[in-house]
């Protein structure tokens, strides 16, 4: 096992962490601040990816343009979903079950429209990569990580440095008290729900560009990303990205050193160890 190969794997893992972080962001914020465990976040991301694939492959629409259409649409989907949760006063746990059902619904829809086969969005720029010394850094994966970092930083700034963000955190901590101090948590929560759904759209864009698509893939992401969300700490955008990179690197190294098929074990082993160890930030 050469040093270069190991480093190359580590870089690959770090970049993989970008997509984990991107998916974990919306989930972590909605769980931590809205007390809604949105399992359908993954399905939504894949729906976005499929739409981008479809528009690109059949009508030649560039990915960025599709994304521009999809993001506002997803924002509205997020609002609608949140309206449903609010109307039926869905509890934290019930939200998980409802969105679990929703995930299956979207998965069935995807399978019905695009079949269960593996699809790949082919672009002219898909294979391009930077060369740094002996290492190759694929551009699209790098962009994913950059996007994840930018969104995480923006979310962190929004939550910690703006009045609106502080109000949101206060409302999540104790709704009635925050309301007594004049915080309109309702409107804020709708905005947040919309933004989380839109972030699923961003994740979808990069999934379309870098991954192979199949409806069965949706479920394969749920476990890992949940591990990332919990390890990163609820409602902690930067933590989610860091945890994503941690899991990504450990997975990639397992693949390189042991055997690719064992990689799924890593995320959950880390999760289980952390749950036992129980550090303060968990």
């Amino acid at each position, binding site marked *: 096992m050469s040093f270069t190969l190991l480093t190359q794997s580590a870089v690959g893992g770090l970049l993989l962490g970008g997509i984990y972080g991107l998916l974990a962001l919306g989930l972590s914020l909605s769980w931590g601040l809205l007390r809604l*465990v949105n399992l359908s976040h993954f399905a939504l991301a894949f729906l976005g990816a499929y739409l981008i694939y479809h528009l690109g492959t059949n009508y030649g629409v560039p990915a960025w343009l599709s994304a521009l259409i999809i993001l506002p649409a997803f924002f509205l989907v997020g609002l609608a979903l949140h309206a449903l949760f609010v109307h039926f006063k869905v509890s934290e746990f019930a939200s998980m079950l409802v969105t679990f*059902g929703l995930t299956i619904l979207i998965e069935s829809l995807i399978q019905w429209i695009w079949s269960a086969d593996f699809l790949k969005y082919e672009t002219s720029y898909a294979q391009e990569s930077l060369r740094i010394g002996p290492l190759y850094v694929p551009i699209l994966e790098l962009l994913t990580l950059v996007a994840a970092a930018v969104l995480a930083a923006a979310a962190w700034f929004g939550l910690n440095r703006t009045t609106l963000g502080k109000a949101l955190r206060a409302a999540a901590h104790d709704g009635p008290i925050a309301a007594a101090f004049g915080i309109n948590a309702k409107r804020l929560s709708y905005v947040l729900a919309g933004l989380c759904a839109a972030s699923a759209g961003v994740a979808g864009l990069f999934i379309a560009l870098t991954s192979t698509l199949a409806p069965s893939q949706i479920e394969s992401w749920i476990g890992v990303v949940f591990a990332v969300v919990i390890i990163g700490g609820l409602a902690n955008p930067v933590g989610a990205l860091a945890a994503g990179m941690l899991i990504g690197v450990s997975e990639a190294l397992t693949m390189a050193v042991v055997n690719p098929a064992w990689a799924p074990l890593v995320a959950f082993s880390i999760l289980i160890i952390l*749950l036992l160890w129980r550090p303060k930030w968990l």
Partner: protein
Amino acid sequence: MALNRNLIPGVAAAAVLALVALPFTGVADFYLSYLYVIFFWIALATSWGILSGYTGYWSFGHAAFFGAGVYTTATLAGKLEIPFLLTIPAAAAIAAVLAVGIGFVVFRIRTLRGEFFALLTLSVTYVLAAIISNTWIDGGAGVYLSAVEIPQFGTSVPGAIYLLGLTLAVAALAISRTVLRTRFGEGLLAIHDDEDVAEVKGVPTFRYKLIAFAVSSAIAGAAGAIQAVYVGYVTVGETFSITVPLYVVLMSILGGARHWAGPAIGATLITVAQSLFISGGQAELGRAGVALALIIVILIVPTGIAPKLFQRFQRKAEAPGPTGKPTLALVPNDSTVAPVLKDSILLECHDVTKSFGGIRALRGVTLQVEEGEILALVGPNGSGKSTLINMISGHFQLTSGTIDYEGAKISGLPPHEIAQRGIARTYQIPRLFDNLTVMENVQLCAAFGRESDSGETSEESARRWLAFTGLLEKADLLPPALNLHERKFVEFARALAARPRLLLLDEVLCGLTPTEVDQAVALIQRIRAGGTTIIFVEHLMRAVVALADRVAVLDQGKLLALGSPRETMQNPEVIEVYLGQAHAS
């Protein structure tokens, strides 16, 4: 109408017998297989309910235990040619061991939240799937079981599988029903409503959750063993798919997860509905339909249909008999009157210290409580009174120091053991089990409290204490239907039903009207007359003076003064704490 009720066991037995006889009547295999599928889901959903429905720890990892069973049989019967019937108990055992292993780890987490448990069990499914598919157990290609010999019990192979499925479904239902009607089941339901309180009332929550998890998983494992030979070819993808937890959860919610028959009703409805509306080619549409049903059910009927169904049925069946038994004498019975040994120490706190992070809530409190006395704990807000109560009842672990009770160390023991030794407490804000009736609330505490030496059943005991607190008419109501005064008295009745030698009362008078306060004071005096030692936290000085033999004043986590009410209240330091410097001089 009463006849109707006596008929039920007979009808049930006849139905089971008819089902057993069915394969011997020459019914086409198709129907047997169809019924088997229903039995399979009944067994699986019912088994899920034993842990998740009763305790509220919802598992999304039922596929892991079902899959452990599938692969146990695939390996033992398919590869090692061990007789199939022997592999069923083996599958159940392996699934149970797996569950105990997982439970041992996750149930130790004190602040384990429901969603974390759901995700952890889901994670376990992925881990197990990865291990099985990467090792010789499966290797990624699947395992054929077509060569496995299945005993036919005098019918055909489908007939035999049908009979096995029927046996397992009936067994699962019988186990689930039995569990619900025992102390064990009461404990599980209490865990669902408020786990901390259940533990403090004497329910060994850790052990109970572990046993429920093991039983639940064992049945799932056995179901997996039978399913393995039914399908004949098993793969990791099919076995550990999300379908199993999805269906099981939906069936249980639809039927009602807290009722023993709920999951079975849900399983039957969904399996039949699927076969009626969906022809084979559109399985995907069926899955979507089930998902949609899940969403609608959770949004519209969160408690499921079984409770409503059975309520209606029972209302019809129950003859309008006399409501409630004759009221029992309003005196504590003799068994609770412990010999009052004056000057004997019941409880001793030695240098008790508690820190929460950097905050030191108690800084070395040393005090003794004599058998038969009433000790009042007073002090300003945040002085550590409730913390001390929580330390004695075992809810919090000590940072340092020791607590001895009846001459033995109790600090460090789990709360349920402390409760069973005869220490009971009430909560400042009543924390009743909201889904159990008032009667069941009290009965549970009687069942899990200090051992009874009078041979009185927990029901008799509960009835007596409800009469004592004047709540007998409210016995069949759920706690949310009561007012604050009544809820506080249910807290009293619960604590008393546990036959305590030491009773800890945390601000029981707070929020009561003056008349209610007088009633409560009289009640406490009657309790002490029964021989129970009492420590009570109180702000209301009138009550403290009326009740207490001695008063302990806490300030900022330290014991400021201890003595008779009069001398303590004249202590300048105490006056300073209460009224400020100016009044002390």
